[in-house]
């Protein structure tokens, strides 16, 4: 079990990021795709707590930073998803009890992650990022993430529960 759990987690992260840039590229709205890795991290944070959510966010974000065709400065998605995981973990008490709170948690986490990524890009003066382009992308990303939450988050939460039936430890 000690090997199985990290292995399953790694496979989940790899598949999620792949599906995000591959499969969902065909289903993009104005180029925006749902941030499946974020949903995975939020679900983990709700089930396993903020510490786990933060670390998984860091790793999943790292995968998004490095997986082709990403070309931005690496570490920005890692920062964004780590903070999103921590945020979702803080709201886990409510999110475990009501579906609405889960959706709100996803919305806040999505807004935070996309903004942090854009903000770090602005600070580093990465090409293509302006306040205008950010404001264009932000609402679409938020709505798409929320729209796909009922399909992904309950399933992901189930997986995290199955992975670790014991209450969150770290």
């Amino acid at each position: 079990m000690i090997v199985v759990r990290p292995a399953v987690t790694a496979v989940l992260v790899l598949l999620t990021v792949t599906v995000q840039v591959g499969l969902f590229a065909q289903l993009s709205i104005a180029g925006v795709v749902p941030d499946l890795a974020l949903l995975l991290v939020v679900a983990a944070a709700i089930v396993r707590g903020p510490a786990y959510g933060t670390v998984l966010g860091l790793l999943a974000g790292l995968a998004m930073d490095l997986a082709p065709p990403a070309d931005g400065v690496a570490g920005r998605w890692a920062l964004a998803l780590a903070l999103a995981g921590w945020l979702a973990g803080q709201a886990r008490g409510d999110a475990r009890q009501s579906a609405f709170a889960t959706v709100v948690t996803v919305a806040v986490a999505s807004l935070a992650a996309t903004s942090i990524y854009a903000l770090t890009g602005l600070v580093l003066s990465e090409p293509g990022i302006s306040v205008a382009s950010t404001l264009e992308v932000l609402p679409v990303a938020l709505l798409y993430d929320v729209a796909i939450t009922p399909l992904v988050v309950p399933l992901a939460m189930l997986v995290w529960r199955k992975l670790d039936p014991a209450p969150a430890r770290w």
Partner: protein
Amino acid sequence: MRRRARPVPPVTLRPKALTRARRSQPLGPDRDQSRHARTALAVSVLVALTLIGVDAAGRPDSPVEPLRTGAAEVFGPLEAGADAVVSPAVDLASLVARSRRLQADNARLTDSNARLRAELATGTVDRNRLAEYDALTGVTDSTGFELVNARVIAIGPAQAFRRTVTINAGTADGVRADRTVVNSAGLVGRVLRTGRHTATVLLAIDAGSVVGGRLDRSMELGFLRGNGSLGADGRLVLDLVDPDSLPAKGDTIVTWGSRGGTPYVPGVPVGTVRQVQASAGDQSVTATVRPFVDMSSLDLVGVVTGPRVKQPAGKSAGRPAGGADAPGGGAP
């Protein structure tokens, strides 16, 4: 890991933590949790910021680059696999769309005679196919370079603010970084980095992309920068080197060509001039260029894999080879 090492006295020392623990009783050792969470957050933020700093400072040859290459080896096959699963469905969808279009054509032409209608139903597809074939051979003929064919298998999301795609050809197929990528309509972009079986392509429409261009009519030179928009408002902005030369609406722009043909080989069609703005202030002329390539629906592309191998008979005889096209040298 000092788990559950809970000394009893914090009642007086940390009243806030205690009340929080009492409020959310079912969560168990909440104070422990939140302390771990703070540690995790601090460490994660530090790791991420360090990575950002290292990568931003070291570009383009940052120490993170090997990590990217490694990630390409892992994600490349995964993305190719995902594409293999999805592409039949996508092809089917486009086939359905095409057949719907043909049906509409048919309906519109029912009034005319049956012979014409039948001709059109088959003719449209044939004509399109012929046009595409002509265009593709046109591109390869006019440039005379050897191409490796590839498919787009993954697309960077708009949230990343970059216009990059993954193609399913890599170093094993002869693709190298800084090679020109074209499709049947014209210039697509250039290869950023390669994995063994995949490569990342920076589209010409990306806000960070700069392509040397030449106006076909006046032979004037300029630089084309993308506006970062993939959709119908995707444009390239052309800054002309000579401020006295005014491009005309409808002028065609081809690549100017870099020294040695990397990253851009000369003579690839880029787009047409849509709008011209002359600003009196800094005496510069900019033109808005609509790219020939529809960057939002890329599928088949070709990567220029080497220098000109052989001239197609009777074609482009008078064209200078390689980097002789770049008088200024060092075109980006």
